[in-house]
Structures are given as structure tokens and as C-alpha cells.
């Protein structure tokens, strides 16, 4: 029997010949060759790992060929045998592909291709990240060149989506339609994206470099303060004293979340639009030349700015600007700033009275914002956990073509924004979105919980951030339906953000209520917890960062949220923000409020706490007998670590009352206590003198690398050494940072203790 041919093109490379931009085509061909070379053993593991990361090809949980099933770690026998795609990363293991979406802008054709790729190579889900990217999971590395070609054919690249490079350039999703912006930052974000992509001055970084644009200072949309380079639109009168104005930007540098967040510093109060690209290039050159390369934990530009001081950093940037060879691209794009325009396709018209679909009023109140342009609105699609299916994405492409010419913007809250919607079209649009399952109300409100991937897919995840976020969404929605405490108007607009670990991908530091995953030992087993972070500020471009108050078992976090909300509802003063409320009532009161939630039942009393949200596996290894054996050793250590936690909490309280020097002392004392607790496992006679503790700690836990985090290495140990060498400070900012570092040091001590327990259990077995 004769079969029809599949197509005249047997491969995507043939099918898309001539449709992939030459610059991207060359990149993809190089990567395809490197894949072949790696399969033949002709590229070093580390080199290949960075190569694929710079193409957005990321690792995923279990890619080391091991999976813990709750009782033991078992080998995953991938068919590739010993072939790896990086150190300890198995070739055949599914991975994640991060796809850059500059300033979150996608058109209909791009949405359709993303939908196709999610179906054919991933799990049918496109995931919107907190930096406006799209991520696909469970991708096989062999498929990545074809995926890249199909993306490149519609103008999308994964180049430099990961690795030590300039990541996706983000921007306020309201850019161009916002009522408060002086001008649209989109074309500038677009220009900077393509200017720095593959730029020779941005190829030698010790770590990643993130850029964000914002149209204004007051809103959160761009989050400029928490980026390596933050760019905020400004206008000023021209120097000739006329009423004319000129466009420019206030430029920030050295912001960032991560384990220890830094607020950005002002690099330039005002740069003209034609000065922006060279300034960014100069910053890249300084970062590339002087940024830390060996110690990844201190390699972000924020550490360089902190080390040099903003004045010296600025001077170095100025020096670079003086010697930069001129480049036509610095200003060429200014000739056509309409390149990113998304003109409305439907006439502006007001929303007239009439019959409305069910749920319309609530959705209108929460998901729709007026634009600067009269008669038009921006409509947010509230995506649960940032996820949407291929079917939804394809339907959304059709919908947007009908209502606004086929344009959307991804948001940093993991939603999608439709702009330039005629007000009169809202009822019909709502009906269409609801039919597609995209009409949920509550965008950018309490129920719209943000979460990083956490233990679902991330190799660094400690707790199930998505599991918790999903549970919180359900409970908040139920509380709102049943007019519970979370339905109160006072808490409606609070933001909850969850990270699976201290690395802040869920942006927990800038939430009203933030969480990051940690673990605690009890009863010889490990229990997933989340640190509760309070006092962060989402508005004013992530204006300030919260601090950890207490670690609560993961399964009790929903109760903690209800209590926190309840306290705010009943005790807030008129007009008092949540952030101010937390500052007023104080962290001691909050801790007292949640204290009973931290008391841990034994495994036999309540097993539910010993697994995480959405994951029935027991959170720890080892059987009960071994656990009890280890527990005897653990008890003394845990006691010491608990004392360290109390000490750092006292430091928090001191910080609250403005006693920076005392707060810093407490942070230092807490680290010493945690280090001493660990040392007691090997030297019960350890004294209390700081030099002795630090010396013993260095010998027993640093030199042996016992304390090293599997991914962060010596990072947390170095926090102690640095403070030990420079104990005194009266700077509030420095004290804030030391409190953060002390908390992370204690977490690392918990993790170290856990590893020791497991080693002991294994040796007993």
C-alpha cells in the first residue's frame, strides 16, 4: 500500500528556510552543531551547560537522574546512559525552555506558534513568568533547535533567556496606554533588547543582568527598583527655557531581589533618550570588567555597586562613556518610535447601559482599567498560577484579533493584558473570555497569588510554592464567595507572592504577604515550611522590601493568611496601609499571632504536615527508627538553632524601632549561635568567644564544605565571615541586610544539620 508523503519538507529547518532572520538562524545552527558535538563528547560539560543556558534551555527537577519517592531516592534510568548536558544533568531528562517576550508583547501569530509548541513538545501549557517570559516544561533538548526555529520565524528568540547574560527586558504592561506615564517606554525597551542581544560588551558577566522599564515612579508595573538596571520615563523642560520638553529617563542600577535584596541606586537623574543605549552599554562594560566572576553568590551587579559605592560606580561608567566607540544604533531607532505601536482597531465608544452577562460587574470592577485614550480600556486576564492551555492561547489569539488587532502584554503578575479595547465591546469580550475559561475576576487582587515553579519543576525548590498558591487561590475564592474575612474590602488589593526558596523568583520580598520555602526538622523527619515575609511594598516600583517574621509549616500557611488578614481588618486605623499596619503593630505581635501554628505535632499525631501541598510524598527520607536515632543528635542542634532564630527575631524588633546598631549586633549574635549549634555536634566543649566559634566553624564546616549549599556553595558561610570581620555598623540599610543574611545563615544551618542527619542515618543503615 502506498502512503502519502508527510510533506515536501521533512524537517522544520527545511520548512522554515528563508523565514528565520539570518542573525537568529545562524545562532540556532551553531547550537544545533554544539548539540551534535556534545553527543559525540567533543564539548566540555560546563561549557555546554552555559551554551544551552544562553539559549534558554534550562534544567528541571530530577534531571540528575535521581528522584525521591518519599522513602528513598531512586535512580531514573534514562535511555541515554552516561550522556549529559551539563554537570550532573542527564541528556534525556526533561528540561524547561524559557522564551523571551520583550516587554511582554505578543501578537496573534506568536501566540499561535507558542500554543503549537506547547502541544507538540511540552505538556500543553504555556506558563507566564514573573518577568513576562513564557516557559515551556518537560522539553527534550533534542527538540530545542526546531522549537527555536519556529519561534524565530515569528520574531521570538530564546537567546540569552538564561545564563550569565542580559535577560528578558521587561516593561510596564500599561506602557502606551497608562494615564500616568509621560510617554510610552515600549519602543525604548524594544531598542535596548535588540541592541544588547548578543552584544560583545554583554557576553562576559559573572551572573545574569536584568533590565526593567517603567512609565512612572508610583506604580508597581515595571518594578524598576528591584532590577540590575531600572529605567523610568521622565520629561523635562529643555534647557533653552521655552515650554518645550524633552524625553528622557531616570536610571537606577544595582537593585535586585535574590537571597538578600538590594534597593537600586540612582545612576542618573536624567538621561536623554539618545543617551540611554550608550549608558546601558557602559554599565555592561563596567559590570563585565569588574563584576565578580568566581563567587557566583556575589556576582550580581548589586554587589559591585555596594562594593564600589554608587559614586565610584558612576565615575567608572562615565569613564567608559568617554571611550565608547560611536555606534549608529544608539539613536537610529529614534527615527521610528512607532515600531511597537498597537493602534486600536475598533472605534472608541463608551459602555452603554444594557443587559450584562453573569459576573460581568465583578469582572469589570477588578480586571478592567481605563486607558489614557478616551473610550478605551485595558483588560486583565487572571491566569491561575500563570498557566494557560494551548487551546486557550490559540483562542485568545483569535479573540484579540477581533477586538484589538491581535496584541497582548504579559504582566509581572503572571497575567495577560489586552489593551485598546473599546469600552462598548466589554460585555461581548467578557462573554468570549468566559467561554474560553479566561474570564475569572480578581486580577491583581488578593486571590491573584503569584508563585514561582518551586518544587514542581525547579531544581532549587525547597517547598511547593505552586501547590501553596493554588490552595490559597481556592481558599480565598471560597472566603470571598461566603463573605469570610478574606472578602473584606480592606484586604481585597493585598498582594500575596510565593517563592519555593530564598531566591525570590516569586518576588516575595515586594508582596504585602510573601512566603519563601524552607524546611524544619521534627520528630526525626523534615517538614516543609514557608517563611512569612511582611512589610514589602509592591507600589512605587517595588518601593521597599519585607523581612521574615517566622517560619510556619506549609500546611498551616492558609490559616496564617486568614489570621493576618483578620488582624488587619479588625485593628487597622483609618486609611492605614497593610505595610504601615505591620510596622505599627510590630513583628512581636505578629509572631505571637502565629506562634501556635509553629508548634509541630509528631509524625504519628499528624502526618499531614509531613508532606507538601499537592504532593503526597513524605517530605523526608529515612524511616522512623533511623529518624529517632538521628533525632537525639538533632535535638541539641535544633535547640541551638532555635535560639539563633530567637536572636535574629530580636534583631528584627530592634530594626523596627530604628536601632540599627543593636539590630546588626543581634544578627551577628544569631549567626554565631547557629554556627555554635552546628559545632556542638562535633565539639561539645566549644566556648562562646566569637573568634573560637568562627575558627571552629571554618575548620569543621567550611574547609570540609559540609556547610556548603548544593547550589549556592560557600555563599552563606561567607555571610558569617564577613560580619565577623566587620561587626559594627549603624547603617539601617546594612543592618537590614545583615538581618536577612542571618536568617539565611540559619536556614543554611538547618539544611546542613539535615544533611548530617541523613549521612548519619545512611551510615547506620
Amino acid at each position, binding site marked *: 500500500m*502506498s502512503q*502519502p508523503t508527510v*510533506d515536501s519538507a521533512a524537517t522544520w529547518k527545511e520548512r522554515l528556510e528563508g523565514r528565520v532572520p539570518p542573525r537568529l538562524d545562524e545562532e540556532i545552527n551553531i547550537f544545533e552543531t554544539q548539540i551534535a558535538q556534545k553527543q559525540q563528547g567533543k564539548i566540555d560539560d560546563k561549557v555546554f551547560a552555559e551554551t544551552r543556558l544562553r539559549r534558554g534551555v534550562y534544567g528541571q527537577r530530577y534531571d540528575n537522574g535521581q*528522584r525521591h*519517592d518519599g522513602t528513598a531516592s531512586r535512580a531514573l534510568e534514562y*535511555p541515554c546512559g552516561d550522556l549529559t548536558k551539563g554537570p550532573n544533568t542527564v541528556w534525556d531528562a526533561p528540561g524547561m525552555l524559557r522564551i523571551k517576550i520583550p516587554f511582554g508583547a505578543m501578537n496573534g501569530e506568536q501566540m499561535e506558534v507558542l500554543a503549537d509548541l506547547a502541544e507538540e513538545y511540552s505538556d*500543553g501549557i504555556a506558563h507566564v513568568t514573573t518577568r513576562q517570559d513564557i516557559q515551556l516544561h518537560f522539553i527534550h533538548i533534542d527538540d530545542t533547535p526546531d522549537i527555536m526555529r519556529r519561534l524565530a520565524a515569528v520574531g521570538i528568540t530564546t537567546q540569552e533567556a538564561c545564563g550569565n547574560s542580559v535577560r528578558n527586558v521587561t516593561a510596564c504592561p500599561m506602557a502606551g496606554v497608562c494615564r500616568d506615564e509621560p510617554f510610552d517606554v515600549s519602543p525604548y525597551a524594544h531598542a535596548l533588547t535588540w541592541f544588547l542581544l548578543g552584544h560583545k560588551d554583554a557576553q562576559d558577566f559573572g551572573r545574569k543582568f536584568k533590565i526593567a522599564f517603567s512609565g512612572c515612579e508610583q506604580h508597581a508595573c515595571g518594578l524598576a527598583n528591584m532590577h540590575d538596571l531600572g529605567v523610568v520615563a521622565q520629561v523635562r523642560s529643555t534647557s533653552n527655557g521655552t515650554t518645550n520638553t524633552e524625553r528622557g529617563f531616570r536610571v537606577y542600577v544595582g537593585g535586585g531581589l535574590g537571597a538578600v535584596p538590594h534597593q537600586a541606586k540612582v545612576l542618573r537623574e536624567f538621561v536623554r533618550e539618545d543617551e540611554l543605549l550608550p549608558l546601558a552599554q557602559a554599565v555592561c562594560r563596567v559590570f563585565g570588567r569588574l563584576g565578580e566572576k568566581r563567587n557566583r553568590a556575589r556576582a550580581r551587579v548589586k554587589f559591585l555597586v555596594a562594593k564600589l559605592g554608587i559614586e565610584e560606580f558612576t565615575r567608572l561608567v562615565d569613564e567608559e562613556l568617554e571611550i565608547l566607540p560611536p555606534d549608529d544604533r544608539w539613536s537610529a531607532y529614534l527615527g521610528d518610535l512607532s515600531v511597537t505601536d498597537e493602534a486600536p482597531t475598533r472605534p472608541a465608544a463608551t459602555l452603554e447601559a444594557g443587559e450584562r452577562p453573569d459576573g460581568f460587574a465583578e469582572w469589570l470592577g477588578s480586571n478592567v482599567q481605563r486607558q489614557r485614550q478616551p473610550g478605551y480600556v485595558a483588560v486583565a486576564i487572571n491566569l491561575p498560577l500563570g498557566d494557560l492551555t494551548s487551546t486557550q492561547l490559540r483562542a485568545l489569539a483569535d479573540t484579540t484579533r477581533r477586538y484589538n488587532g491581535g496584541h497582548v502584554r504579559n504582566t509581572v503578575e503572571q497575567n495577560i493584558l489586552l489593551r485598546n479595547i473599546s469600552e462598548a465591546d466589554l460585555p461581548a469580550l467578557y462573554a468570549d473570555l468566559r467561554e474560553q*475559561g479566561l474570564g475569572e475576576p480578581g486580577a491583581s487582587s488578593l486571590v491573584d497569588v503569584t508563585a514561582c515553579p518551586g518544587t514542581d519543576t525547579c531544581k532549587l525548590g525547597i517547598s511547593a510554592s505552586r501547590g501553596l498558591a493554588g490552595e490559597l487561590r481556592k481558599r480565598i475564592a471560597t472566603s470571598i464567595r461566603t463573605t469570610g474575612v478574606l472578602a473584606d474590602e480592606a484586604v481585597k488589593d493585598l498582594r500575596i507572592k510565593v517563592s519555593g526558596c530564598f531566591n525570590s523568583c516569586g518576588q516575595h520580598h515586594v508582596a504585602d504577604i510573601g512566603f519563601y520555602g524552607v524546611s524544619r526538622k521534627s520528630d526525626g523527619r523534615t517538614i516543609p515550611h514557608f517563611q512569612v515575609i511582611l512589610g514589602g511594598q509592591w507600589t512605587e516600583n517595588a518601593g521597599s522590601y519585607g523581612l521574615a517574621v517566622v517560619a510556619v509549616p506549609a500546611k498551616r500557611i492558609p490559616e496564617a493568611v486568614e489570621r493576618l488578614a483578620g488582624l488587619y481588618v479588625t485593628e487597622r486605623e483609618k486609611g492605614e496601609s497593610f505595610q504601615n499596619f505591620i510596622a505599627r503593630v510590630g513583628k512581636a505581635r505578629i509572631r505571637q499571632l502565629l506562634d501556635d501554628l509553629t508548634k509541630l505535632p509528631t509524625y504519628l499525631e499528624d502526618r499531614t504536615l509531613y508532606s507538601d501541598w499537592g504532593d503526597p510524598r513524605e517530605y523526608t527520607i529515612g524511616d522512623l527508627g533511623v529518624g529517632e536515632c538521628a533525632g537525639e543528635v538533632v535535638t541539641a542542634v535544633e535547640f541551638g538553632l532555635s535560639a539563633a532564630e530567637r536572636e535574629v527575631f530580636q534583631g528584627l524588633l530592634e530594626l523596627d524601632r530604628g536601632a540599627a546598631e543593636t539590630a546588626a549586633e543581634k544578627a551577628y549574635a544569631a549567626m554565631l549561635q547557629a554556627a555554635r549549634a552546628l559545632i556542638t555536634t562535633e565539639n561539645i566543649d566549644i566556648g562562646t568567644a566569637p573568634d573560637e566559634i568562627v575558627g571552629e566553624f571554618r575548620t569543621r564546616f567550611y574547609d570540609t564544605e559540609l556547610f556548603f549549599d548544593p547550589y549556592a556553595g560557600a555563599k552563606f558561610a561567607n555571610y558569617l565571615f564577613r560580619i565577623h570581620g566587620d561587626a559594627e555598623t549603624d547603617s539601617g540599610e546594612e543592618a537590614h541586610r545583615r538581618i536577612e543574611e542571618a536568617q539565611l545563615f540559619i536556614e543554611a544551618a538547618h539544611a546542613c544539620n539535615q544533611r548530617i542527619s541523613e549521612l548519619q542515618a545512611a551510615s547506620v543503615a
Partner: protein
Amino acid sequence: MDMEGAQGHTLDHLVKLDLKVLARGTSAAEPEEFIPVFHRWITERVLPELLIDVADYSHVHEGPGVLLVGHDAIYAYDLSRGEPGLLYSRRHESGAELASIGSLDHRLRSLLDCAFRACDLIEAEPQLGGRVAFDRHRLELRVNDRLVPSDEETALTLSGAFRRALAEAGVRDGDAPVEVKRIGEPRERLTLRTG
């Protein structure tokens, strides 16, 4: 059976195929109930292939539900089109059971066997208490590879092979052979449906 086409690339080489077995209307399990089941399947190596992870998308409207991700295939209690069912989505053929497949007919029969085996296991799953059952004659076969043209000629070829595989597997709608028809829009992946 000669499967070679004029360009040297025929449906015989098409690995990426999806087969969905629709659940009976009386099925009453929540998607989340599959999470512990699938985790246990990984631990106990219930299937003769490499199983890696479980993914929960039950929060997404008419989405892939809960997935059991393997190296050669993804299994899902799938909720797309609002019709729950067991989705078997083949990605590779590295396992010993699949290594000898060389033709479209053989592959389709193998697809049916793999999907039905998962259905059998789910129906017998103690944790689900018999609350999920599948109609093995209500099937959806989809080409998950857009290099394959979604045209009538391909649909005809695929339908013929699918009918043969169904007959060989003994899939019938009561006493009658199942009907196979094409569904969906041309821009969608080529999809056939029975019943």
C-alpha cells in the same frame, strides 16, 4: 506493507501521536485524586517504561488535568473540550516494548495497547474506588506533529490504519465496528474520532 512515499518520509515515521480514551459520563473522580495514584505508579514502577514526574494542571480550565510524565509518553487524566478521559501522548520510542515498531499500523496498535493498559489500571485503582471507567470505543486519535499536513489525503490514510488497528484490538461499538471520522478545523492538528 510498503510505507515508503515519494519523498522518503511517510506516516510510518510519525512517532508523536496522541490517543485519548473518553471517560464514561458516570465517572466521578476529581482530577486531584490522580496525583497520589500517579506518584505511586512511579514509585512502584507500575508501567514497563521510565516514569519521571507528576504535574498538576487541574486549576486550568479544560486543561491537561493531572499528568504522569514519562520519557516515552505522557499519560494524563485530561479535561480538554470538557470531556474527561485518559490521554496517552507518545513522544519517543526508546523502551524495549516500543523499540521494534516499524509501521504506522503497528504503532497505532501499540498506542491502543498502552492507553488501554493505563485505563485498566485506573479502573482497578483502589484509591479511586471504581469511580472512573472508560468507554474504550470512544477514542480520539491526534497527530501531534505539524510537519504532517492536516489534509484529506493524510486523514484518509490515517483513518484506514486506525480502523485496522481498532479491528485488530477488538474495539467495537456494541456489535458494530466503530466509526472513524475526522473532527476539528484544518488549522488544528489532524484529529480522528470514533463513535
